[in-house]
């Protein structure tokens, strides 16, 4: 399978130290429940879902998520971050088939 595509958004776009921003993490993933049947063959499509997502700010763990197949296809995960200064937000996502992806975004407070 091709590499998992991801996108991180910080809202609002401009923010200062001390403010709380929202982090949206999106990933392209089928999130197969393991209960769906292939329309043509009738065989059960094996479960395939993101099962762990770690958010790190400057390499320090901010939020760890264990996720399950009940999340929608192409999941979106939103958490908050209190901006303590400039740095890098890293998101590590991995699925139950062992595929993983790392994405980063710069945190650049104004003023």
């Amino acid at each position, binding site marked *: 399978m091709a590499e998992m*595509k*991801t*996108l991180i*958004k910080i*809202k609002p776009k401009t923010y200062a130290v001390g403010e709380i921003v929202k982090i*949206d993490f*999106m990933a*392209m993933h089928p999130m197969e*429940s393991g*209960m*769906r*049947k292939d*329309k043509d063959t009738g065989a059960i499509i094996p479960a395939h879902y993101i099962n762990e997502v770690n958010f790190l700010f400057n390499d320090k763990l901010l939020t760890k998520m264990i996720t399950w*197949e*009940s999340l*929608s*296809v*192409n999941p*979106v995960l*939103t958490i908050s971050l209190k901006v303590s200064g400039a740095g890098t937000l890293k998101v590590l996502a991995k699925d139950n088939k062992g595929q993983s992806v790392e994405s980063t975004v710069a945190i650049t407070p104004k003023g």
Partner: protein
Amino acid sequence: MRNFSICAALLSISLCGLLNADEQLSMSDSDKAMYAEMVENNPAAMDIADGEETFNRLIGEEAYAKMLGVKAKDLPKYIAGFPRFVKPAGKVVTLAQTLQMAMADRGQNVPKLESKEIVTMSAYVKSLANDQKTNIDVKANKQMKEMMALGQAVFEERRGGRGLSCNSCHSPDIVGSRLRMQPLPDLGAKETAAAGTWPAYRMTQSAMVTLDKRMQQCMKNALLAEIPLGSKEMVALEVYVTNKTKGNAIQIPGLKR
């Protein structure tokens, strides 16, 4: 009670068999607001990012503008006028078709209209025109006039086994009625913003879908003979439907049920 098949069935393409036929429910304003908020985190944004990468790798803005005979800085406004008559094509084409042309121009293998490359690139290129008003000009030349007339004819023709036409469900006197709890959209209404919001992410399909593909889905569901992508009739339908929302701002990608 626990043996729910989560969504297995929900994710299948047609949902018609699962509805609760006699319950007529509609969403509250706060529910609608929650859904509206979802537009901001539209998974199709990833398709668009993908399309941008593909477009820059395979074509590039300069070469694309040059092929179309416009300045790169005028591209957004020009893009907001599709489908339009394009000289190098010698006919009225959709945005997606111009990408096929640009690839042919560069001696590349031309992928199909429904290919991932063309779909994501056309979404990206259309997003360059975001906030521009749809400025299709159906009177610009005789080719456009002809396509507009053909589009209207196709829209109104009863081509289905059930004697339905697009107009049966999308005519001004029927829109707003509900078909199995789904309000029939007025393709010309600001709220529907039909043409300016496709390609859109369809939540029922968990995928980004183009306008022509969306229209094919209506054909399939209403048992109308399916018009092939890229055919003259399909381009004409796109002209006709796009013209209904002329003046509306383009907002790509849309988010639809």
